């Protein structure tokens, strides 16, 4: 038995992981979803902004982290459009713009908002930090056209947008580099802007340090936070029809974690038994 566990084929572990995520997805368990402070901080801040505020949402992610960040993107868009904000988006990752388009169609588009007066997608620019710093000095120079190639002078809501300080709030949805860390380093301290971050769970522990120091005023970390935010913003909703993607996955998330913890325990039991065996031999 010990030998079997010691050289356990990893495919057996794979099967357990697969079952522990697939079964809860098919059968609803309904574990509770609370809300944590960093998530409420984001929500409260957007609630406090006056309607018509200019909000920049920088969507720096790609399909690789879509399950975590796309629900966040949808929930944030819905919240902002519900509150009547003007939403501007930029992307620092090449694969992001089509995802942002989808999120816009599902939220603002379905809610009857208009492209050009309520929402504009400025598109992708390569360069990470350089792009962020350039936004600090001039947006029309860096983004002469929007994602569709329309001159920004022809877009009504671009009037009066000069640089990053023309925005009242920045929401960054970040899957890694370039992302929240670069926004914090180049924009927050320098221009004293309000920034909140929605990030993958991988980078969340790092950004907690930014939240504690007040450099970001709220943090959505991973799918769990996305689920919390969905709950706060009233998703799933009928009108417009928006699915609750993150909330639905929460039971599966719990079960998979449980299975991984059990495997860690088994691994350690095997380790200790083995060590005892070796000691006995000596």
């Amino acid at each position: 038995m010990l030998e079997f566990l010691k050289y356990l084929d990893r495919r057996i572990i794979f099967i357990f992981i697969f079952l522990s995520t697939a079964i809860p997805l098919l059968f609803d368990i309904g574990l509770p979803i609370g809300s944590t402070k960093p998530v409420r901080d984001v929500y409260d801040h957007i609630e406090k902004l006056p309607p018509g505020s200019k909000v920049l949402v920088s969507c720096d992610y790609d399909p690789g982290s879509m399950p975590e960040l796309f629900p966040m993107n949808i929930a944030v868009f819905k919240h902002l459009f519900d509150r009547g904000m003007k939403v501007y988006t930029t992307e620092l990752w090449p694969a992001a713009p089509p995802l942002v388009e989808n999120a816009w169609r599902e939220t603002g588009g379905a809610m009857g908002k208009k492209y050009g007066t309520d929402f504009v997608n400025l598109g992708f620019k390569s360069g990470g930090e350089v792009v962020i710093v350039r936004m600090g000095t001039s947006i029309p120079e860096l983004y002469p056209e929007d994602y569709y190639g329309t001159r920004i002078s022809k877009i009504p809501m671009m009037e009066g947008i000069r640089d990053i300080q023309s925005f009242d709030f920045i929401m960054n949805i970040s899957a890694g580099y370039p992302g929240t860390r670069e926004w914090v380093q180049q924009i927050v301290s320098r221009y004293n802007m309000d920034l909140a971050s929605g990030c993958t769970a991988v980078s969340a522990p790092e950004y907690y340090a930014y939240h504690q120091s007040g450099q970001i005023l709220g943090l959505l970390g991973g799918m769990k936070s996305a689920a919390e935010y969905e709950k706060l913003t009233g998703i799933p909703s009928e009108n417009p029809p928006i699915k609750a993607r993150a909330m639905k996955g929460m039971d599966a998330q719990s079960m998979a974690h449980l299975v991984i913890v059990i495997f860690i325990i088994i691994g350690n039991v095997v380790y200790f038994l083995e060590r005892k065996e070796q000691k006995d031999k000596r």
Partner: protein
Amino acid sequence: MLEILITWIAAFFTLCIFSFLYKDNPIYKFAEHVFVGVSFGYGFVLQYYNVFLPNVWNRMPWEDGGSLFTLIPLILGLLMLTRIFPDIGWISRWPLAVMIGSYAGLQIIGNAQGDLIEQVRANFLPLWTDTFSETIGNWFLVFGTITTLVFFFFSKEHKGVIGHTARVGIWVLMISFGASFGYTVMARVSLLIGRLQFLLEDCLHLM
């Protein structure tokens, strides 16, 4: 109709990639190579429409609102392509120098203002507060950070007081790595959930 086709092709490729879990196989290799091709082609098109057209081509001197200075990055950019030819590859160091210089400069100011000063300032915390958990937490934060910094001392041997402090520093680091590990597990599981949701809900309509 198109939607259904997209869903089923997507499902096919999803399964191709998942087949790697059993072992490396031709189907996986096929999908992987298609992916690399598609992703680079996609990136190229995006750079063309989002950077090259608006920031270079439409700002050439002969365009409305263009300037002669736009020729400089165009030339430097083209010089970068000399990398493909080994004999004149050294010219590509010029544009490379632009990248390295810019990023080195930005990293200096970014690290100084965003990480160094702000993070030191954030540790100016009172060691006595109204709530017990916050007081304990502040002690943890202040002394944990300092012990970690001691661990990063390189010009003193880790012996005696410094050695003990550095050891505590390692413990603090390990706790924070534990937190990172827990969160990373969460992230990866979420990604799997996303894929299974796609297969079970969008393809098979089981959910």
